[in-house]
């Protein structure tokens, strides 16, 4: 019987290597895999490349991981936001590499990784400094730049419901980067609010089919009573 659910966070994090590219789902505080990030902090992998929309806030979660010196490089669209204090300290001190990617290009680069597209041409960012050094080609009269697929070694995502095959649904705007990141990594680990029996998810409404998911751990969100 296929059962992708794991009982402990240690099992969920098993085998994550130093130097991994780790995709972190979430947008703002919605859909962030907080428990998995804490699990990763505990697990100890270092020299990580983190792909996320933001660069962490406060001194918890991703910010904590960075503060512990475990992140070598961050690839994101919106590094500097209210409370991104750890990022700013480390970046100013030259202790963190930064790659800024337009948000849609970031999503599309991971979608490409998940879908077997090696690289693609997009008009986004053409003529801006984020296109510097990139190949330009005119397609249908419009300049496009070449962007490469962005693969993860690991994706950490937050789902709403999951079953033992790893099928996932999300809750409202919690879907965000989670669904695309789940497709783009060799090892996708999901924390799910609810583990439901196989067959309970509507086959017409599964957002992430289990083929993209390797491990599922039950983590009700903090303060949730449902």
């Amino acid at each position, binding site marked *: 019987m296929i059962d992708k659910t794991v009982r402990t966070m240690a099992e969920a994090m098993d085998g994550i290597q130093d130097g991994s590219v780790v995709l972190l789902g979430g*947008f*703002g*505080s*919605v*859909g962030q895999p907080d428990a998995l990030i804490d699990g990763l902090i505990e697990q100890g992998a270092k020299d990580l490349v983190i792909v996320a929309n933001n660069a962490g806030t406060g001194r918890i979660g991703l910010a904590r991981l960075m503060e512990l010196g475990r992140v070598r490089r961050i690839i994101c*669209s*919106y*590094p*500097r*936001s209210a409370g991104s204090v750890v*990022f*700013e300290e480390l*970046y100013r001190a030259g202790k963190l590499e*930064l790659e*800024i*990617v*337009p*948000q*849609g*290009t970031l*999503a*599309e680069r*991971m*979608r490409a990784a998940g879908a077997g597209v090696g690289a693609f041409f*997009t*008009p*986004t*960012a*053409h*003529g*801006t*400094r*984020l296109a510097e050094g990139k190949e330009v080609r005119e397609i249908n009269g419009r300049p496009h730049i070449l962007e490469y697929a962005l693969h993860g070694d690991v994706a950490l995502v937050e789902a709403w419901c999951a079953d033992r095959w790893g099928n996932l649904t*999300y*809750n*409202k*705007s*919690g*879907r*965000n*980067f*989670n*669904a*695309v990141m789940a497709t783009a990594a060799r090892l996708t680990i999901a924390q799910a609010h609810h583990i439901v029996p196989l067959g309970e998810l509507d086959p017409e409404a599964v*957002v992430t089919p289990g083929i993209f998911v390797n491990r599922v751990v039950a983590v009700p969100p903090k303060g949730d009573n449902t």
Partner: protein
Amino acid sequence: MSSWTRAQMAARVADDIPEGWYVNLGIGMPTMVADHVPETREVIFHSENGVLGMGPAPEAGQEDPWLINAGKQLVTLRTGGAYVHHADSFAMIRGGHLDLCVLGAFEVAGSGDVANWATSENDTAPAVGGAMDLAAGAKRLWVMMEHTTKDGRPKLVRRCSYPLTAIGSVRRVYTNMAVLDVTGTGFAVVELAPGVTREALEAATDAELVFPA
């Protein structure tokens, strides 16, 4: 000098949005536009984080922490709305499916170039978010901003001095002083705010202005 308030600017933009358009409103001032579209006129608002058919802020007690917009504010979903993931959400933007995007900006040039994400070449860690995707992808890009900086420098310029968000993308600009169409070589004045003179507008603008005959 008189001019439009922010609420009046938002109302002025809202007036130009017909029923049935799919619209993305940038973080900050453009977000106010939604409040000025009457409920009877169905305009479908899109948020980058995967919300199509976004409604206003929830009433007290009705907040759902799982439903936010790209500015991370709590919002609602209108009847008929739908949730999608980030790649699908940006497919809507990048595939040219949005009728309109309204962004704030630091500078707009008469060529339609826009700079709205980084204030100088030395700002090494600016936050681009979805601005470049929106500016390049929407069918129409309108900018909504104050006509000048706080210290009085023009924001409608011959050539952007800040790092660009997109080249030749802006169609129309709504400021506190005027509504102006981008001509490619400057701006054509569509409407002046009450009390704003031609001379005042010219003094506050560093680009070619064309006034209606």
